[in-house]
């Protein structure tokens, strides 16, 4: 019995012993989980940047890990809550405030003062302020873009829409569900970006669901805009999330896609007969919706030596050379003058992307209390959005329920 026990215990120990912590390394390893590790276009930039960094600092290795966007923020929150944050903190900027509010992020004012970032970064960098301290470096601010399949528009004898009504009409004309053809690819399943889709319509029409620091979901202008969004989802396949929506557009199955400029890199993966038809342009809204997309941060709990290494990485990413290369992937780079006039002339898509980014009006909440609890806000709005997609309940009723729910669960002082 004893022998068996010992043998079994040894085996169990061996099995679980293989889970032992990583061998003590002479070098430092920085853990870098991100949703962009495999995103076409920007992932090449990350990998090149990491290679250059490791060359410059041979005693530091960076471990790039892919985490799907849909789970990214929740996983990061769990890790921070468990006291186990990653070394290089990459966040969607909309969620930055809730992390900063917990005191999880390292203030960066002193470090920033020693660089030229404050001088050369756009106004959106102020979004990285929380409680009077700068706690992140903006990596990208953008304006939403309209991607369209020109072939389908030509077949329906339509031009590129310039107003929301034209856009909805074009979606309708090019939808034939029986043949698996749809006018729009948008998010019709629970996904963090569902709020962005809805907000794009609202902000794009010049309305605001957080006017004057108060919830404004029952404003007729907001209701009208949300209704347009709801109509648009009727021309889209059901049950798609952000990744599948893009895939459908790239495969040539839908006419329109509203998304950020970063999708430009993914278009290269389209089949040869579809690629020439895929174009980019401005959204047919009077106002361009956009905002701060993502940013880099350092966790407060990381040890001092690693913090320095992470800061070196951030500084490298912000340097003129790497900012130019970033801008050339299609996403607007924050550094002033990252793209030369020659670049813009050579790549017309970059011009429209950067123009829209410059005009963009922030679609993310700016009310402090909402930013600190962004996850709760987004969950409630998403639930209302799903109600509108999966039931026939009238829009004003759903929105007034949402207003009541938000007022009750996330009161604004």
């Amino acid at each position, binding site marked *: 019995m004893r*022998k068996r*026990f010992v043998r079994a215990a040894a085996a169990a120990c061996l099995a679980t012993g293989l*889970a032992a912590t990583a061998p003590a390394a002479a070098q430092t390893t920085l853990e870098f989980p991100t949703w962009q590790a495999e995103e076409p276009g920007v992932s090449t930039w990350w990998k090149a940047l990491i290679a250059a960094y490791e060359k410059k600092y041979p005693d530091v290795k960076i471990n790039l*890990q892919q985490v799907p966007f849909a789970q990214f923020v929740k996983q990061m929150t769990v890790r921070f809550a*468990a006291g186990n944050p990653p070394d290089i903190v990459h966040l969607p900027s909309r969620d930055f405030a809730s992390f900063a509010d917990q005191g999880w992020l390292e203030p960066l004012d002193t470090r920033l003062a020693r660089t030229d970032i404050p001088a050369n970064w756009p106004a959106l960098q102020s979004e990285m302020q929380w409680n009077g301290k700068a706690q992140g470096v903006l990596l990208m601010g953008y304006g939403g873009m309209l991607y369209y399949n020109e072939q389908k528009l030509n077949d329906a004898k339509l031009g590129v829409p310039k107003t929301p009504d034209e856009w909805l009409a074009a979606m309708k004309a090019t939808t034939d569900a029986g043949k698996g053809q749809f006018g729009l690819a948008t998010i019709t399943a629970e996904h963090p970006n569902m709020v962005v889709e809805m907000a794009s319509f609202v902000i794009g029409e010049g309305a605001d669901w957080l006017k004057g620091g108060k919830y404004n979901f029952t404003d007729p202008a907001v209701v009208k805009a949300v209704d347009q969004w709801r109509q648009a989802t009727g021309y889209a396949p059901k049950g798609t999330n952000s*990744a*599948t929506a893009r895939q459908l557009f790239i495969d040539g199955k839908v006419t329109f896609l509203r998304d950020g400029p970063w999708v430009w890199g993914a278009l290269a993966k389209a089949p040869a007969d579809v690629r020439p038809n895929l174009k980019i342009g401005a959204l047919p809204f009077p106002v361009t919706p956009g905002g701060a997309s993502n940013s880099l941060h350092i966790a407060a709990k990381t040890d001092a030596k690693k913090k320095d290494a992470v800061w070196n990485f951030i500084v490298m990413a912000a340097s003129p050379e790497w900012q130019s290369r970033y801008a050339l992937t299609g996403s607007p780079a924050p550094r002033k003058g990252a793209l030369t006039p020659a670049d813009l002339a050579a790549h017309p898509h970059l011009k429209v992307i950067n123009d829209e980014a410059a005009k963009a009006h922030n679609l993310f909440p700016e009310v402090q209390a909402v930013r600190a609890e962004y996850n709760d806000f987004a969950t409630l709005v998403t639930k209302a959005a799903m109600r509108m997609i999966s039931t026939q309940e009238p829009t004003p009723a759903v929105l007034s329920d949402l207003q009541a729910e938000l007022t009750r669960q996330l009161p604004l002082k």
Partner: protein
Amino acid sequence: MSSRLQRWLWFVLAAVTVALVLFPIYWMVVTSLLPSSIVLSRHPPLLPPLEHVSLDAFAGVFRRRPVLTWILNSTLVAVGSTLVSLVIATLAGYSLSRWQTRAQKVAGAALLLTKMLPGSLIVVPFFVMFTTAHLIDTRAALVAANVAVGVPFATWMMKGFFDTLPRELEQAAAIDGCTPLQALWYVILPLARPGLAACAIYLAIVAWSEFVFARTLVTRADLWTVTVGLQSFVGEYLVDWPALMAAGVVSLAPMLVLFLLLEPFLVSGLTAGAVKQ
């Protein structure tokens, strides 16, 4: 109707219904062997056109995701937790079978409790406890969690098995000069091998399939188990059904093999336990 004809009719009915029941597994395998263009059709072919069958989807899955890492993690956790649970449960089951102690009530209560306790609830205190013990993001945490769920049921299974072995065996061993422990090791355990096998398979299948602990107690991508990896796959590649089904086949295959090889033990084990309860 002749009895022979009757038997064949029952066979046909049974075969057809079993085929229908197993259709989802069949469909998963077929989809994983065909390209997207054939599979994404408004009239999918129920029988795969053999000229298009290929393993491309599988190659793609292994290329895009660290599936081998997932399989390794699942295996380590399943083996580790099965071993630990089996040892603990065998000792406890033997004790409960041979000696009437107050512990009977505790064992009964513990079993009932684990049958009522949802995994998604107990993972909350597990998360809190393991965070404090710095066990988050370790396979040991998953082994512990699976042991928590496995020990009560396995104990009852082993008790049921030991109950079927007459006390005379130990008495005979005692006459031959064995201590109680020696009797257990040399006489009883060899006879309980079917029970041990049944228990082990049950524990292994449950641990391999486990999802909520693996998803919550481990966040580092290199420690994901097969179930967690598969679920994350869903959001990303929802339109790439062949790849998703290939990932499903890979996740399922070890369990299918285990089950088909060792099912006789499992059935006799479960039914013995159920009838006795």
